[in-house]
């Protein structure tokens, strides 16, 4: 039998390729460049790479000219393995922007007094001479940058994946580096390693389900291509059981990444244990990629079986919102609290995801679910990034201060930081004139348009509960007096500051003039089939 070499559209895939190339180069740098200069090289390399990828992504986007009223639906690339349509390209741009901010956080050195937030020498045991020497020598793991680049490449592939196999590979490519990154904290290394272990174990476990689901769906449809699956679903051939079983298991894999109930158990532990920059990047970027993939898989491949999976997602959305909001009430650790809040947000995103309805029901002017979800994930990503960035600057002698009670009086200590954190929290609570509100409105409206009223009601009630713990933080920061010597805010370098600035600005702008972005999404948020 003879093989024909597949045709690869390098120009279209350039963003992914660039990022991958940078990652590989990064590895070489580790090998070739002397330790003293690695930091600079790696940082600049990744920054340049991501910016380049961003430009490339924008170029690709311009080819489907999204500004026109009737944009092209998009391209299928790499032998239909990747679908480059509106949603994909938007996710790319968003992920790359978040990655850029992520790199800035990774590269932050002033907070730890001249070194990054990553372990000087991961192999050195915590609390041993070796570790002390490592930190004394100011060692630091610059491998984090290539690792991150790998993760980013996976994230870029994830929402673009147009067949189950690509989806699986992308999933692993984005997950594995993150597992490692979670374990590389400079301080509280035991927690960090534990986080890595838990994340890895559960991640592997869930990917087991994912693959098996893969197999079952393949058994049902006889192909891994989404369009073929969609065709099989609509034609109703094959055994329902295989389809449903497979669909369920794939859902498990994706919902695990999203951190939806009941697959959220890892979220609080990992978010808390991981180095804050990693948490920030992970919390923001992973959700974007995962939701991109979730939307494509269930809208394109399983769109025909909507009536089968929608009830299940109703339950999951409700459960996720309830668990996230209620459990967050009693949290006393800021990072953990933000983790639960991110769970709640996943619930809200799923609410928007429930807006799925046949395209004929969606009139031209109307808000469509893809648009709503992508908009919300944008607002959420930027806000969360900035929030975690702020967490990383509130410190005392022993590093970051994450007990909520110790944040008392921060409002007096440094009004600017506390003020912007309060603003971000109000954003997450969904107060108008912040992006949180417009986002919430969009996802709720999308769900309501599809008639998912019970979910919307629950969502509304849960936002009320969620508001309670956000407000609680504000009260602690502004209206209560510090216990002992309150935490001090270490003035970060321009890098972290710029991340915070961008996040706050985005939260405000997307809250006041969300129009342009929404319209862009409204025009382009159509999946190619």
């Amino acid at each position, binding site marked *: 039998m003879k093989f024909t070499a597949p045709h690869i559209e390098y120009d279209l895939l350039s963003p992914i390729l660039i990022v991958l190339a940078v990652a590989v180069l990064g590895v070489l740098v580790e090998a070739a460049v002397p330790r003293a200069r690695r930091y600079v090289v790696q940082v600049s390399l990744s920054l340049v790479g991501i910016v380049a990828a961003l430009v490339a992504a924008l170029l690709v986007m311009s080819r489907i000219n999204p500004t026109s009223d009737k944009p092209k639906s998009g391209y299928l690339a790499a032998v239909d393995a990747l679908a480059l349509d509106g949603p994909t390209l938007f996710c790319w741009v968003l992920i790359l922007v978040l990655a850029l901010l992520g790199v800035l956080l990774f590269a932050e050195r002033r907070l730890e007094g001249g070194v990054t937030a990553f372990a000087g020498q991961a192999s050195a*045991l915590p609390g041993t001479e070796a570790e002390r020497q490592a930190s004394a020598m100011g060692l630091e793991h610059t491998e984090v940058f290539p690792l991150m680049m790998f993760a980013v490449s996976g994230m870029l592939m994830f929402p673009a994946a147009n067949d189950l196999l690509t989806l699986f590979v992308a999933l692993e490519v984005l997950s594995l580096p993150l597992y490692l990154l979670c374990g590389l904290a400079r301080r509280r290394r035991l927690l960090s390693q534990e986080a890595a272990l838990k994340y890895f174990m559960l991640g*592997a476990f869930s990917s087991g389900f994912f693959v*098996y689901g893969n197999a079952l769906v393949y058994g049902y449809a006889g192909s891994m291509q989404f369009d073929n699956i969609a065709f099989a679903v609509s034609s109703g051939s094959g055994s329902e059981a295989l389809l449903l079983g497979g669909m369920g298991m794939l859902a498990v894999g994706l919902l695990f990444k999203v951190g939806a109930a009941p697959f959220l158990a890892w979220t609080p532990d990992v978010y808390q244990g991981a180095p804050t920059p990693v948490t920030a990047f992970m919390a923001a970027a992973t959700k974007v990629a995962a939701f991109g993939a979730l939307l494509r898989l269930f809208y394109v491949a399983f769109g025909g079986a909507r009536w089968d999976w929608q009830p299940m997602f109703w339950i999951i959305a409700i459960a996720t919102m309830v668990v996230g909001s209620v459990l967050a009430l009693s949290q006393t650790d800021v990072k953990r609290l933000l983790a639960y809040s991110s769970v709640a947000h996943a619930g809200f995103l799923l609410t928007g995801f429930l807006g799925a309805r046949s395209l004929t029901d969606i009139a031209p002017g109307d808000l469509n679910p893809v648009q709503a979800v992508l908009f919300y994930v944008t607002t959420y990503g930027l806000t969360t990034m900035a929030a975690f960035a702020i967490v990383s600057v509130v410190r005392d002698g022993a590093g970051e201060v994450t007990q909520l009670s110790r944040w008392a009086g921060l409002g007096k200590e440094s009004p600017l930081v506390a003020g912007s954190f309060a603003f971000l929290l109000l954003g997450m609570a969904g107060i108008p004139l912040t992006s949180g509100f417009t986002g919430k409105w969009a996802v709720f409206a999308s769900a309501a348009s599809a008639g998912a009223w019970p979910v919307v009601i629950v969502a509304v009630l849960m936002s009320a509960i969620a508001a309670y713990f956000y407000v609680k933080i504000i009260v602690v920061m502004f209206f209560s007096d510090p216990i002992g010597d309150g935490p001090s805010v270490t003035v970060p370098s321009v890098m972290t500051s710029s991340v915070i600035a961008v996040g706050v600005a985005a939260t405000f702008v997307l809250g006041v003039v969300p129009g342009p972005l929404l319209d862009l999404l409204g025009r382009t948020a159509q999946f190619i089939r």
Partner: protein
Amino acid sequence: MSTTPFIILSAILFTIGAVGVLTRRNALVVFMCVELMLNASNLALITFSRANGNLDGQIAAFFVMVVAAAEVVVGLAIIMTIFRTRRSASVDDASLLKY
């Protein structure tokens, strides 16, 4: 010949793996159980590929093996660090992060 027995076998393997993950303490064993699950999937993939008469399934199986290998690399690294700090490979010892 029918594919059902193979599917049932793969399902059994998968379940064994899943249960193993839940019951075994030693991180390495847990990890092996995950591998077992992956291989159960491989079996299913190949079976279906045979049933459907195309190669996608088999290719997928190769990919899964590769990915599994990569996973091993990462996984073992993490487990090693934990083992070295804690002098134990029991996943239950790592339970500082809770509530």
